[in-house]
């Protein structure tokens, strides 16, 4: 394992210190418990939009804290969901009197810890709602399993709901909007290489030189299927087709296409894949009205990518275009 770190046990806190210095104008960082807070929090009478999850997915979630997106993010240890006290502290720190919406990726650990936190915050008298994002079509959904994972769709939800909250939409409205996004967003990813969690010291799985993992999550966990690597013209449909079939998306739909790097895949490959995905969508009569291309929901240094499709309507387009000012996304300000 070669990483630019000192001690695996302190890697999250050490990175937070650098992040705090790099974005002092946007963020306040607290260390015990670890919470990244929008510098001007609490914003009076605004719904606080809060997310969190294991570290190692940067810029998710801390890079999306700021005006027009998240009020706070709670980073757990690498690939480990945060603890309830972090989330409770985030609620306390950002509550502007209009309640808080917790954006939770659907992993057992995240769900359980946020659940406990919501109980703590409710006990403090804050109106807290939870929305669980489960957009990963690689996982078959069922009442008898942990259900689908939350992956790339989370960023789109945070942007859109963050914009609504910034405009003064109330907690009911933010919650309903968040559920609408969840209902209309689908993702799927693949990995060409594994990643190494600092405290584990070894890659989370190993792949032969001609293999890839199809249907990976974002925690360095192996995917559903190990298959031979093909050319980009095969890889992109292998992600896109299951997404399209799932919702389903159909000709005439307007979509946001999010082409995401898992971290180690360079921009040149990502743009290449994005171009193919746009072509395939055009062939089906689906209109790509907005796009996001880059490493936004990562798994440390993992090489791979994911595609996310969000079905758009005028309101979602407007909220997507609304001003945002965070370390990782910025426009309109």
């Amino acid at each position: 394992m070669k990483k630019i770190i000192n001690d695996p046990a302190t890697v999250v806190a050490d990175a937070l210190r650098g992040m705090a210095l790099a974005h002092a104008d946007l963020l306040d960082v607290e260390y015990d418990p670890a919470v990244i807070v929008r510098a001007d929090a609490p914003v009076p009478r605004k719904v606080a939009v809060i997310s969190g999850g294991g570290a190692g997915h940067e810029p998710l979630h801390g890079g999306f804290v700021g005006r027009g997106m998240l009020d706070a993010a709670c980073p757990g240890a690498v690939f480990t969901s945060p603890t309830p006290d972090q989330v409770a502290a985030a609620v306390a720190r950002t509550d502007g009197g209009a309640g808080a919406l917790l954006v939770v990726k659907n992993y057992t650990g995240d769900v359980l810890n946020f659940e406990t936190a919501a109980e703590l915050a409710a006990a403090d008298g804050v109106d807290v709602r939870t929305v669980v994002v489960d957009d990963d079509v690689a996982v078959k959904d069922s009442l008898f399993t942990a259900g689908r994972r939350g992956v790339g769709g989370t960023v789109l939800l945070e942007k859109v709901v963050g914009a609504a909250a910034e405009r003064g939409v109330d907690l009911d409205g933010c919650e309903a909007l968040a559920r609408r996004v969840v209902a209309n967003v689908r993702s799927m990813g693949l990995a060409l290489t594994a990643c190494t969690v600092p405290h584990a010291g070894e890659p989370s799985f190993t792949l032969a030189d001609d293999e890839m993992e199809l249907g990976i999550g974002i925690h360095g966990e192996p995917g559903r299927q190990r298959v031979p690597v093909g050319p980009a013209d095969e890889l992109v449909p292998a992600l896109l087709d299951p997404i399209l079939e799932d919702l389903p998306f159909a000709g005439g739909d307007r979509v946001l296409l999010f082409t995401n790097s898992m971290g180690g895949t360079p921009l040149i490959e990502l743009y290449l894949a994005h171009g193919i995905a746009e072509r395939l969508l055009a062939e089906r009569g689906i209109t790509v009205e907005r796009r996001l291309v880059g490493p936004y929901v990562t798994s440390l240094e993992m090489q791979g990518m994911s595609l996310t499709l969000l079905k758009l309507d005028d309101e979602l387009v407007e909220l997507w275009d609304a001003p945002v000012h965070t370390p990782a996304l910025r426009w309109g300000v």
Partner: protein
Amino acid sequence: MACTAEDVARALRAVAAVVKEHREELIRLDREIGDGDHGENLARGFTALVSKLDGDVPALPGGVLRLAATTLISTVGGAAGPLYGTAFLRAATSVGDAATLDAASVAGALQAALEGVVARGKAAVGDKTMVDALTPAVVAAEAASAGGGDVGAVLTAAAEAAEAGATATVPLVARKGRASYLGERSAGHLDPGARSTALVLRSLAGQVLS
């Protein structure tokens, strides 16, 4: 033989030592069908618990168990944090403000812990989780207690059953937790949470017997 708060604290220190010792093993198991953090998460949590116990040991066994619960909840994270935390919280509630714990109250605490884990995680036996270790452990503990065994016997029976239950997770296809994303590919691997549950019970038993 009955356990005081000091005994419970000593037993938890023993657990912490064993978890630390098996940290790499649990990481490896979790890397195979999860995300490789289970050993690190538990080690972090129990290390934090030992620091707290170094400061001040609560007067009653229930207080020690409650301290374990809150510490694990606020330091472990992941699925195991709330699950282990809830287990200890329910155990604490179950023993109430008894000054010492006897075999029956230990068996009852284990039963309460299991109920807490199931309430939180909604897993059933066969889903390839810690429930597969804890469920037979509770059955064995109750049998041992009903048969007149002391605390050591109860915990030893629980540990043995948990170990068997953990081993039995190997062929299973996971239906809960992160391993479930692997589908059929989760078969053939020992569940890390079941393994850690067996380790915790074995170290509790070992400490009480020594």
